[in-house]
């Protein structure tokens, strides 16, 4: 019997039948809270979220192996991997495919594009990880993960999420920009404005008192108004 809906499908807790998959709860992680823990089979062996402690982690999902948009994304992720490494970031892919499908696809990409996929890919056949992270949107597909990006900091805290539909390949420069912004904010206690990129002015946190607002004009910032001041780093 399905534990969730009580129907008589005669399945155990590891069942992957459509009824059980549809009944498994779908979580939705929240920013600035611990990222959902997992232990998963990957193309690099069994990995736990805690294995990444001390590094930033970009966990991303794709709909399926051997599909066109996903293939262009994997090539693009591999291309930015050296830039991510400079920032102390590891990459971890995921889809609801077997580890053998992942291995075959990664080898095919290497053959067709002459680029090695240097990061592991989770084979989430049980959908345990994808459901904990809200990667499945039943309105889009019940059997595929959509294009999600989760940025997890070195302490395991979820710091950013991006969700893309199946038809839109992700922008790697935006992922790098997001990480640069998070790391800059952490290091300097500032925020970053729209379209910010490293080297641009950053936003000084707005004062929290009327006295602070009055002093702001005299603090040497690039002053638009008391609540919007920028500075160079």
């Amino acid at each position, binding site marked *: 019997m399905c534990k969730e809906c009580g129907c008589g499908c005669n399945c155990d807790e590891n069942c992957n039948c459509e009824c059980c998959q549809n009944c498994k709860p779908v979580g939705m992680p929240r920013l600035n809270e611990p990222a959902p823990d997992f232990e998963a089979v990957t193309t*690099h*062996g*069994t*990995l736990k979220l805690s*294995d*990444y402690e001390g*590094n930033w982690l970009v966990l991303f999902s794709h709909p399926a192996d051997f599909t066109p948009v996903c293939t262009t994304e994997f090539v693009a992720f591999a291309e930015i991997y050296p830039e991510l490494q400079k920032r102390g970031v*590891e990459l971890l892919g995921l889809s609801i495919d077997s580890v053998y499908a992942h291995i075959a696809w990664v080898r095919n990409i290497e053959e067709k594009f002459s680029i090695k996929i240097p990061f592991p890919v989770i084979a989430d056949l049980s959908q345990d990880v994808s459901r904990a992270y809200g990667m499945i949107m039943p309105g889009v597909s019940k059997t595929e993960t959509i294009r999600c990006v989760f940025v997890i900091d070195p302490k395991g805290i979820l710091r950013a999420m991006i969700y893309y539909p199946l038809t839109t390949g992700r922008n790697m420069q935006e992922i790098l920009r997001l990480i640069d912004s998070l790391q800059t904010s952490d290091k300097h206690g500032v925020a970053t404005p729209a379209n910010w990129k490293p080297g641009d002015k950053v936003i000084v946190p707005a004062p929290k008192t009327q006295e602070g607002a009055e002093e702001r004009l005299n603090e040497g910032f690039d002053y638009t108004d008391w609540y919007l001041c920028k500075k160079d780093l």
Partner: protein
Amino acid sequence: MACVNADGTLTPIAQKVLSALEHPASVTEINQRSGVPLYRVRASMRELADLGMLEEVSELFYITEKGKNHLANKLP
């Protein structure tokens, strides 16, 4: 298994990790000595410990005789 091949020999990653244990070391030191990414060091340590090839005492890892034999290709 990510550390042991089907024929019982160690994978290149496992060889690097065990080779970095000439002296007892922490996970971070093994990462620095071997050049293996931190997440893979942790995952490999877990698997190699399960296989009895290393031991952990007070957050320091020691290679066992079984680990040394595997590293020298002297399989049990």
